[in-house]
């Protein structure tokens, strides 16, 4: 019975999609907000990567909320999985190769992550991609040395402060008489590393926040066996 209703549901969905196919204008040349942004973004934000302009300037509030979602998810993940017991059994040691590899990779990942974050307004990449790399940089030692652990208190304070930075930069604009989250500072020369005003600073906050939250989540999941 259940299978039957499921099949019926899928069939209906398939018919709907087929109908949409029939009527959809694939080569739709509708004028859209994105093309208007392309026309003015370089001038208005000073970032060479327009996706970064949209993420941090035009739709900055979306990004703030997205960070808040990660923050909340990390907080709830910690709550659901609980803390590690002191006497919980450890995983077996990871062995020489993984340990040395982790030691060698850690600085490399850190540098690559920061590079990607700081060039987010110029090239593809930015706070999210770089943040993931930062998270893996901090998670890798955890895999290599099962005895070590990430200090969750530090993480929660770091992520809180990084998120607060984002909001406070936004509030500064309000004290300046502009709207909340308006980019500030000099826009500089298009394509230069130090340009686009506050956008790189915002992306740095995003990167640190994403990195610390994902590292926290990964550490929680890795240690979940030991919770009480």
């Amino acid at each position, binding site marked *: 019975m259940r299978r039957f209703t499921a099949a019926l549901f899928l069939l209906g969905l398939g018919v*709907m999609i087929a*109908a*949409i196919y029939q*009527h*959809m204008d694939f080569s*739709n*040349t*509708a*004028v*859209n*907000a*994105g*093309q*208007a*942004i*392309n*026309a*003015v973004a370089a001038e*208005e934000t000073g970032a060479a990567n327009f996706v970064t302009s949209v993420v941090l*300037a*035009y*739709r*900055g*509030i*979306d990004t*703030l*909320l*997205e960070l*808040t*979602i990660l*923050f*909340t*998810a990390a*907080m*709830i993940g910690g*709550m*659901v999985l609980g803390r590690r017991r002191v006497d919980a059994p450890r995983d077996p040691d990871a062995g020489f190769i993984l340990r040395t590899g982790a030691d060698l990779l850690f600085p490399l990942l850190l540098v690559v992550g920061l590079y990607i974050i700081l060039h987010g307004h110029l090239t593809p990449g930015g706070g999210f991609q770089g943040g993931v790399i930062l998270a893996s940089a901090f998670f890798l030692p955890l895999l290599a040395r099962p005895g070590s652990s990430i200090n969750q*208190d530090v993480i*929660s*304070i770091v*992520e*809180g*402060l990084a*998120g*607060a930075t984002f*909001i*406070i930069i*936004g*509030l500064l*604009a*309000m004290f300046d008489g*502009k*709207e*909340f*989250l*308006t*980019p500030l500072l000099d826009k500089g020369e298009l394509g230069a590393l130090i340009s686009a005003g506050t956008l790189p600073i915002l992306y740095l906050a995003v990167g640190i926040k994403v990195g610390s939250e994902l590292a926290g989540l990964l550490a929680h999941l890795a240690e979940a066996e030991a919770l009480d």
Partner: protein
Amino acid sequence: MNLLVLMIALPLLTAFLLSSINRISTLAARWIGPLVLLATAVIGLSVWPQLGAAPLALQWGGFQAPLGITLYADQFALLFALAMTIGTLLLWPRSAENQLRSSSLALLLAGTGSGLALSGDLFNIYVFYELMTVVSYGLIAGRGTSGSFASTLRYLVISGFGAALALAGIALVYQATGTLNLAQLAQLAPEKLNNLQGFAAFVLMLIGFGVKAELFPVNMWVPEVYATASSRVSALLAGVVSKLALLIIMRLLILVFHQPEALTVLLVLGILGVASGELAAWRARDLNRMLAFSSIGQLGVMFIALSIPGNAGIFAALAVMVHHLFLKPSMFLLAERWGGSIEKLAGAARTSPIAAALFVLLALSLIGVPPLPGFWAKLLVIMPMLALDQPLYYLAVFVMLAAASLEANYLFRVVMKLYDKQPAATSHKVHATADLATALFLGGGLIAAVFMLVPLADRLDSIAAQATDVSTYIQTVAPQQLQSGRVQ
């Protein structure tokens, strides 16, 4: 003037900083949350009078309308933003284990709820909605029992499914119109979205946003969650959060989707919601689940009201929403100590006479007994439907009347038990003072509304009229025409 932004930004900022503040002073961390919400409520109330004359549009980041994200405040939106803020303040979740965490979640809920009500951008609404969903997971699972984890997981599966569908709906809208700004969508909708693609987008978004609004096919989570979460969280979710989801659907319906089929879908799903909800409530044997199912029925009535074309439908839906906004949290708070089997309620009126009396009044209003507000709200839904003179609407009226008699049946079963002469073997717990006071405040406010029905109805009517005024919406936001960058 752009202080309205603080209604969203301040709670978020405080939530981020709460764990740092806790390092410095535990006392400050305990009190800063309620204080911030009080401040944002004052900000909202101070803006309220001037919105009556003209709604207000702000641009996040100061970018011109279709490019940046719009925040649109009319009295309709601000009413629910305030309901969220004040509701969270009244129903401040308490947790013995980790007050810090539940305070953060409460602040996030208040900030997001306000933002959701005030947002004027389709994708921004989606992100706010997702954040509100994640925060509710935290509030439900915060109980820490195995049941709360399991119900959160089932809720998460349904929500995740719905959210992805809503995203697909947004993709279809953007494909057709090239904009996400609601004002500009309202301009373009008659030309670009009045087709099958627009209808598909509506259905997808209805399923997505309907999850929280307890829409008929995607409401399996309701009884489990309300039975396992703490009463204050249930009160918040059933009372305020579901209304915010409904507000999004109303906005979409008013501004973007004008197909008659959309109204039919709402009507059918509403009827099914009323029928299934009330039948299940009638069969329920414990108070929490009974209230949960009856909430599905009430939300169904709101969907039926929305399906009435024109201003009358929005007005009726608004009246039912405001009625439910006060009634349901109050009932859930009363159920806090009475929760559990109805059989065990016998004689509870003797230990807590005030609570029992309040419950009776609320039950009468929920059923719709004449002088009480619930009656007038239901009348506002039924009258325009009779005037429409269509078979499906007659069916809706019939289902609503049948549902009222079912409601009367099961609620009186509870009331009879409360005033049972034979006391049960178990001793009843008295309500906590804070819970009872809040319940009395909300319920008392509702009953007091009987004495000023006419001015209240006028006020709600003007709010509904402002909400349905599409041309004012477009003029206030004033999106610049999308020009130049035309491709090919």
